[in-house]
């Protein structure tokens, strides 16, 4: 029998359906690998072995029935072990959002994105680590420990979905869900050398996603390749009556194609190749763009002139929305409570004691940006400049099908490297924030390694609801040059 955790998701699915091995065996292989490796990685906050094996036994029954002659086909996700970022609610498991203010919280319902995967037969291994309330770029802001990058344990996995990215990269699961508000799927995918999808705003229901910045939040996913990622996307996507911001657009049947990109117009924005970026990253991304050209894509310069304003816009709008969303954590309805002498005192003490430093910083920043006398100068102006950033993308996508650029200026940085300097950490997000402000989808995938052995990521962005083009182009690249077959900790 092959080493089961080395298989791609689709190969594991084929093996399950052929009866080469069972979902219980596959799930046990993941649980054993978690047991062996995750003490060093800290990618999981909660593992549910019994529940996972129970789901696997159920999946095996379905798979057995599906092998009978004439039986209807089952989802290729049936029996596949996955992990869920701990900002998505799964009934029966805790949901902490990486915060002590939700310590012990048991959500009363399951997120729509997760429920659709469960309905397709996935096995949920557990919940993965995250920066507190998804606020961060390194997973160092989790209140429950720092996740380590599987390629080099002294490096961060990126964030905020660093636990999910590290778990997939280390072969602890075949896919994982994340959320992306400013790059929280794409940046850790790049740092951990896996394929990560940020969906179009409104494409996947946010019901059951613990809110951070509501006009920016999206549910996304990680797998080892675009082909492995595709069934997660098509299973999760689509309108949900429980989320008024979910779009009623039909979910396309995506044909990954045969690697021929002729007719595809790819724009390369010069604003995404900046002074001070790591030379190996620029080199790796430019080489990958040449691969797309060799597959038939036409490569052209494109301009996104307001790119450098995305960072200040994001760090006013996202904290403003967060300050409102996080007002609900007051020790009244859920989570632990710290007592004060009256109701106001209870609010002040509960929130002061149980929010971590980055969450407090963003609540403070957002409260200031929304406060009387400063609203127009900060929040109002940021919303207007957001319009300019969105118009940049509208204009670029009039003549281009995709935009290709780096995910990050550097490969994974060291744990502790940004110390107590929040602004320098925010600058890590410079290439991922614009997609969230414009609401467009993006995909990150590995295109090589730097001299330290750390993965380099490339980002593709498409017009809203244009995920199909992301999948086809990334799959064509991965069919030509198989960086995704490199394994950390193998």
């Amino acid at each position, binding site marked *: 029998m092959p080493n089961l955790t080395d298989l791609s998701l689709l190969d594991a699915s084929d093996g399950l359906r052929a009866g080469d091995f069972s979902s219980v065996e596959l799930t046990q292989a993941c649980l054993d690998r978690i047991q062996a490796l995750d003490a060093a990685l800290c990618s999981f906050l909660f593992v549910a072995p019994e529940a996972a094996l129970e789901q696997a036994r159920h999946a095996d029954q379905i798979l057995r029935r599906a092998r009978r002659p004439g039986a209807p086909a089952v989802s290729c996700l049936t029996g596949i072990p996955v992990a869920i970022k701990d900002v998505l609610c799964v009934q029966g498991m805790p949901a902490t959002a990486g915060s002590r203010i939700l310590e012990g919280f048991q959500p009363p319902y399951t997120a729509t994105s997760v429920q659709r995967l469960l309905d397709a037969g996935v096995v949920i291994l557990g919940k993965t680590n995250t920066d507190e309330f998804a606020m961060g770029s390194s997973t160092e802001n989790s209140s429950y420990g720092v996740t380590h990058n599987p390629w080099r344990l002294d490096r961060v996995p990126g964030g905020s979905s660093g636990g999910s990215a590290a778990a997939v990269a280390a072969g602890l699961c075949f896919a994982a869900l994340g959320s992306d508000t400013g790059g929280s799927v794409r940046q850790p995918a790049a740092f951990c050398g896996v394929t990560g999808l940020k969906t179009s705003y409104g494409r996947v229901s946010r019901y059951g996603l613990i809110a951070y910045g509501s*006009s920016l939040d999206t549910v996304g996913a990680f797998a080892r390749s675009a082909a492995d990622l595709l069934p997660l996307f098509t299973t999760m996507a689509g309108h949900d009556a429980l989320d008024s911001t979910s779009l009623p657009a039909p979910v396309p049947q995506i044909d990954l194609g045969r690697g021929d990109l002729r007719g595809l117009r790819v724009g390369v924005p010069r604003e995404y190749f900046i002074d001070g970026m790591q030379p190996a990253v620029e080199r790796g991304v430019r080489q990958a763009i040449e691969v797309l050209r060799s597959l038939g894509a036409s490569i052209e310069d494109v301009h996104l002139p307001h790119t450098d304003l995305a960072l200040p816009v994001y760090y*006013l709008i996202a904290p403003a929305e967060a300050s409102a969303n996080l*007002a609900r954590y007051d020790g*009244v309805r859920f*989570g632990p409570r710290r007592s004060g002498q*009256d109701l106001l005192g209870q609010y002040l003490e509960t929130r002061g004691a149980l929010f971590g430093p980055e969450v407090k910083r963003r609540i403070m920043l957002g409260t*200031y940006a929304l406060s009387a006398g400063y609203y127009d100068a900060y929040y109002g102006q940021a919303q207007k400049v957001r*319009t300019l950033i969105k118009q940049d993308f509208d204009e670029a996508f009039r003549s281009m099908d995709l935009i290709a650029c780096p995910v990050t200026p550097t490969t994974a940085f060291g744990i502790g490297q940004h110390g107590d300097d929040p602004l320098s950490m925010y600058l890590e997000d410079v290439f991922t924030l614009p997609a969230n402000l414009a609401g467009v989808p993006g995909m990150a995938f590995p295109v090589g390694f730097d001299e330290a052995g750390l993965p380099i990521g490339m980002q593709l962005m498409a017009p809203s609801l244009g995920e199909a083009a992301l999948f086809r182009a990334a799959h064509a690249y991965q069919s030509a040059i198989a960086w995704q077959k490199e394994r950390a900790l193998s």
Partner: protein
Amino acid sequence: MALTLEEVRHIAQLARLSLSPEEEARFQVQLSAILDYAARLRSVDTSAIPPTASVLPLDAPLRPDEPRPTEVGARLLGRAPEAAEGMFRIPPVFP
């Protein structure tokens, strides 16, 4: 320094956060640096630009507002730190 210590305390009160003196001093420095950085937005002429609050089309469809049974409601009180008689229990608003 864009923010005074008094402003930091005022924002913390608005945000319902009790801060230690060390946190107040650190946030004064850090938030000032972030706001200084954000000040570059002021030089952008947006006099003719409408704000974007959401990227969704404005004609997002509405569903009929019909009451339906749910099991979630009954589970909610069980998540509260303190509940009594079918209600969340809180300390006195006016001590």
